[in-house]
């Protein structure tokens, strides 16, 4: 089977899943009392099964399109009003389609235990499956109209996803942030596409790609920058990222997982589409702007992640950080092309796509587990959790696998893709220009800072909720029975496969690079069967890594102390004593690190960025210490919403106030408008 029919099958299955959800769960009208019962539960499972099958088809199709190259543009349907639907399965979209499939399977396995069968859940699942379908349409779009229609439907359906519980105010606010920024981005995307379509005299993406040389210098740069900003709103580049921390906490767990795992990647796909397929051969400066934007995004993302109290906001900022890493790689890749380093161009694109796949897997895993924690312990705040390794053992193991991946520790998948990106950036000297070389090195240094802070952040992100003692009774009473395990476990297995099977993944991605860039990377990248060398010919080996050998070696090395312990155990008499806690009479959970104290050093070092505001109020000033309760409040100021968005919103509101008198409701005034417009049109036609 070729790729495009598989993707179409996936889309059909998701549509069927949406219909099933609507029919079985949401069949009754709103507001009427309903007991879903057996039909509801069966409907939920049927919907998830269909969704899972669709995911399998999508993953298969995505994988196929990676290795088999771009397919023809197929058209479907045809109506006077909507035009025809043009679809094409491309190699560039292959990674994203495969990721979409894996995420769909994992969330389908997760949903039956997470959602209770109810009409709201039925609507939610219908919207979710349709969002999957819309995302697939974005990835398989063959022309501009299909792309834009699919993009906008995807945005609206995601808005419905976030609004799972619409009666809570923070949910409505978060969903509104998402929709507003999505729409602004959409306007810019449409503008970029319009420029391209006008210059290339065609709406089909394949044709535009082949006529890229027709787009002149200034128009090309303008189109690219519009696309970068427009897709940047969706991807979460700083300062366009503000919707991510607002929307993720309020969406249900699988919704947040989908948003972070895929929707954000669609923004990255859009940037890659413009930078590598539609407008290859950009000059250096837009590429460097992209790289700089990515580096700044990565640093700021992780710095804000370190000061979040809520698990999902923390993961949202971590997503921003990883998107920054991916976009830095894309930008550096385009810079290398501007200096005629074609194999490094292809190599960094490969590394960026690998990181897309990796991040999709482990971020989705972490969001799903955040949902499990929220259901088990009843709270999302770090400072109310603790000791979850004892109460939720399977969850903690799976989350640990995801944490190791996202912290980029060897030999896991995050390490492999970040290593590849770093190796590409370290070869910046091959551009030949000193200034550009220094800029690339600065980007690499920023990513290095980000990597270190990411480890810090995830030690905090895993250690505070899972290790230590439970800080509240809710955390101590968390129970694991009935919580979903299969979905996250599948993603953990995918992470392990991406790590150990790196040679296979790299071989597949090299085939895709041959289609997208025309550069044959495989003999350079994988000289042996299992070792990766990222240097372009005819240079000597720059560095080498074998993820497979590394994994085997590390496991063997870790086994050695274990064997020593087992061998020495019978002979040495050992006593089990409590942990040394300083000899105090009772160690209380409140004496442990809290999330904010653990990250306090960053608030001291980076206080110019955070501008922390601390307020302390005491009931009295009794010097003997009996001053009653002390109220301590510390806040990291939200720089972007306060200094960038609020002023813009205020200007828009003021403009709206100025314009409001036009809509006075007075019929006579409206008739005057009609008359004036007709008069002007007549005069304009006559002259």
């Amino acid at each position, binding site marked *: 089977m070729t790729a495009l029919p598989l993707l179409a099958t996936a889309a059909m299955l998701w549509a069927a899943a949406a219909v099933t959800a609507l029919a079985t769960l949401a069949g009754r009208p709103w507001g009427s009392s309903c007991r879903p019962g057996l039909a509801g539960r069966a409907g939920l499972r049927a919907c998830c099964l269909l969704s899972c099958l669709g995911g399998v088809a999508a993953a298969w199709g995505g994988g196929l399109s990676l290795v088999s190259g771009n397919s023809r543009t197929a058209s479907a349907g045809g109506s006077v009003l909507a035009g025809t639907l043009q679809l094409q399965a491309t190699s560039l979209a292959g990674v994203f389609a495969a990721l979409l499939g894996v995420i769909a399977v994992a969330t389908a396995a997760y949903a039956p235990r997470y959602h209770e069968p109810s009409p709201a859940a039925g609507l939610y699942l219908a919207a979710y499956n349709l969002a999957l379908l819309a995302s697939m349409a974005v990835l398989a779009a063959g022309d501009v109209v299909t792309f834009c229609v699919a993009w906008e439907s995807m945005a609206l359906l995601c808005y419905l996803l976030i609004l799972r519980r619409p009666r809570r105010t923070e949910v409505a606010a978060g969903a509104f942030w998402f929709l507003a920024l999505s729409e602004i981005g959409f306007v810019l995307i449409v503008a970029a596409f319009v420029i391209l379509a006008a210059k290339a005299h065609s709406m089909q993406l394949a044709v535009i790609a082949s006529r890229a040389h027709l787009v002149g210098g200034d128009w090309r740069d303008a189109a690219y920058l519009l696309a970068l900003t427009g897709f940047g709103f969706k991807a979460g580049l700083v300062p366009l990222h503000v919707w991510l921390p607002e929307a993720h906490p309020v969406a249900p767990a699988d919704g947040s997982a989908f948003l972070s795992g895929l929707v954000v990647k669609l923004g990255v796909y859009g940037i890659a589409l413009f930078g590598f397929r539609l407008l290859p051969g950009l000059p250096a400066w837009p590429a460097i702007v992209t790289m700089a934007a990515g580096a700044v995004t990565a640093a700021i993302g992780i710095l804000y992640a370190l000061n979040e109290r809520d698990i999902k906001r923390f993961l949202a900022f971590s997503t921003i950080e990883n998107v920054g890493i991916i976009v830095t790689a894309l930008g550096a890749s385009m810079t290398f092309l501007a200096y005629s380093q074609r194999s490094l161009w292809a190599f960094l694109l490969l590394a960026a796509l690998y990181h897309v796949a990796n991040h999709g897997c482990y971020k989705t895993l972490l969001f799903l587990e955040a949902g499990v924690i929220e259901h088990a312990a009843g709270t999302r705040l770090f400072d109310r959790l603790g000791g979850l390794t004892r109460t939720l053992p399977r969850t903690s193991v799976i989350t640990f696998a995801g944490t190791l991946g996202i912290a980029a520790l060897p030999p896991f998948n995050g390490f492999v893709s970040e290593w590849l990106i770093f190796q590409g950036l370290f070869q910046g000297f091959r551009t030949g220009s000193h200034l550009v070389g220094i800029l690339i090195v600065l980007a690499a240094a920023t990513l290095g800072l980000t990597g270190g802070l990411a480890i810090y952040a995830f030690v905090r992100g895993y250690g505070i909720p899972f290790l230590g003692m439970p800080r509240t009774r809710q955390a101590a009473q968390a129970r694991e029975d009935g919580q979903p395990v299969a979905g996250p476990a599948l993603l953990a297995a995918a992470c392990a496969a991406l790590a150990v099977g790196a040679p296979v993944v790299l071989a597949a991605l090299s085939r895709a690079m041959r289609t997208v860039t025309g550069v044959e990377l495989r003999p350079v990248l994988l000289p042996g069967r299992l070792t990766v060398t990222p240097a372009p010919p005819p240079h000597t080996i720059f560095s080498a890594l074998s993820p497979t050998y590394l994994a085997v070696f590390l496991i063997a090395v870790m086994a050695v102390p274990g064997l020593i312990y087992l061998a020495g155990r019978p002979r040495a008499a050992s*006593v089990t*004593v*409590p942990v*040394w806690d300083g*000899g*105090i*009479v009772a160690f209380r959970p409140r004496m442990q690190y809290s999330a904010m104290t653990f990250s306090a050093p960053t608030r001291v070092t980076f206080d110019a960025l955070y501008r922390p505001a601390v307020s302390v109020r005491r009931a009295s000033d009794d010097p003997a210490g009996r001053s009653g309760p002390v109220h301590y409040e510390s806040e990291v100021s939200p720089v972007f919403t306060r200094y960038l968005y609020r002023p813009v919103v205020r200007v828009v509101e003021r403009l709206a106030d100025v314009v409001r008198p036009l809509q006075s409701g007075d019929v006579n005034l409206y008739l005057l408008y009609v008359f004036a417009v007709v008069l002007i049109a007549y005069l304009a036609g006559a002259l």
Partner: protein
Amino acid sequence: MTAAGFSPQAGEESAEELAAAQLRRQVARQFGRSLHIRTLDTGSCAACEQEIRLLAAPHYDLHRLGLFFTPAPRHADMLLVTGPMIRAFDVAVRKTYEAMPGPKLVVATGACALGGVYQPDAFTHGGAGEMLPVDVWIPGCPPSPLALLQGLLVAVGRLAEKSRTMTFVQNGNPR
């Protein structure tokens, strides 16, 4: 571990003293060149602590003898106890002693810890011997750093104990 570092009287070779000599050799082998000490103040007036602190100063310099202070009982070989062992400290003493991995030594120093100054009552046990198995007792109020050094070296078997043969009786001319 007990009976470390005393020299047997000439001619008396009882089984107990042979065992003690062997134990002393084991202790010297284990700790003779490197010993980590954890100090524990069970309610003292801190004069002993000041003298103990002086041991780390350049004039006495216990590092040249292979002795080190450590705050973590997990890393400690010896517990150096001062103070009359107040009852409020029971939990802490037990936890500290249990947190030390074997083999371990206990040294009590200062007149309070040896049972001299305070009698057992509702607030204090009276001495360190009530709560811990003490290996070496170092008198003094406070013991000078030289006395402390001698006591620590006796505990690790590098010096011989002298107090057993002291009489504190002076015959004839003043010394």
